[in-house]
């Protein structure tokens, strides 16, 4: 019994030095991301709708490459602390900026 515990401590100490990420943290991060999607109930159609609206608005100001536009719900580190928060990330390649705004 005692021997078993000491072995465990040694392993723990070792993993501390090697700084290998514990698998429970991997599990927690994956779970958080999965739940963001589950809870938001984001269907591909839902994202397509957002995409369509964003294209419409941005096209008033600039020329964009619609086929390359990528939008997804993901996670990011929050500003304060290192909490993980959901984020809507859009990657919109710009072809040309219109001057009509001026």
């Amino acid at each position: 019994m005692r021997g078993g515990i000491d072995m465990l401590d040694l392993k723990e100490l070792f993993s501390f030095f090697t700084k290998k990420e514990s698998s429970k943290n991997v599990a927690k991060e994956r779970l958080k991301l999965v739940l963001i999607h589950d809870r938001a109930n984001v269907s591909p159609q839902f994202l397509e709708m957002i995409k369509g609206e964003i294209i419409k608005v941005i096209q008033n100001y600039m020329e964009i490459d619609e086929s390359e536009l990528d939008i997804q719900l993901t996670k990011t580190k929050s500003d304060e602390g290192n909490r993980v928060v959901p984020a809507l990330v859009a990657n919109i390649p710009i072809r040309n900026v219109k001057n009509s705004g001026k």
Partner: protein
Amino acid sequence: MGEVIVITSGKGGVGKTTTTANIGTGLAIRGKKVVLIDTDIGLRNLDVVMGLENRIVYDLVDVVEGTCRSKQALIKDKRYEGLHLLPAAQTRDKTAVSPEQMQKLCEELKQEFDFVVIDCPAGIEQGFKNAIAGADKAIVVTTPEVSAVRDADRIIGLLEAHEVKNPKLLVNRVRVDMVKRGDMMNIEDILDILAIDLIGVVPDDEKIVISTNKGEPAVTDTKSAAGQAYREISSRILGENIPVMPLIPEDGFIFKIKKFFGLRTT
């Protein structure tokens, strides 16, 4: 007027049936009048976990269809005073019962019993809807795995949508050694994600397999760590304020505690 508690999880194989058997028996040991209902129609198992499989005459479907009175279908557990089982039908499917019928049955049983404990099937379809229809309270069972916690989150949402307020979480099959070396999510991690109240933590325990082999719930085994956890959970259901034991006690402490209980209970 009794209380109807549904034991649910979403994911299969996390220990709903074992939990139902142990909590029900735990409450009966404490002198309460308890009825367990197996709502897993077509895949019944609570009868074998309870060791009552040879005594089934009528089942849940017979009761809701009016083939027999509910009293006739209840199997009285001869070992524990006040404990009864209403088994599921094995040759029918979930559509043989409706949520309205379940609600009516729960209302009826509540008049006579202190606790009606419902074993919910896996999934979120008809069987789940039947199981929660008459429930006043819910216990969501999960294990420290991504899949089980994810399904628990979904179930918590569905329970709230169906007006079963304030479900409590039971984390089953926790392995202290794995938590300690960072290879299993700990209770804080899970509570942080699910944001609900904890009713108890049940350690992974070989004795559960042994007790299931025999058809005697582990809660009656004073040497079983899981049994001890289920006794504490039963006490919490009865309103007693028993703190959940810390998962990572200092070295040697858990051993002392085990020894302490071993000494006290034998």
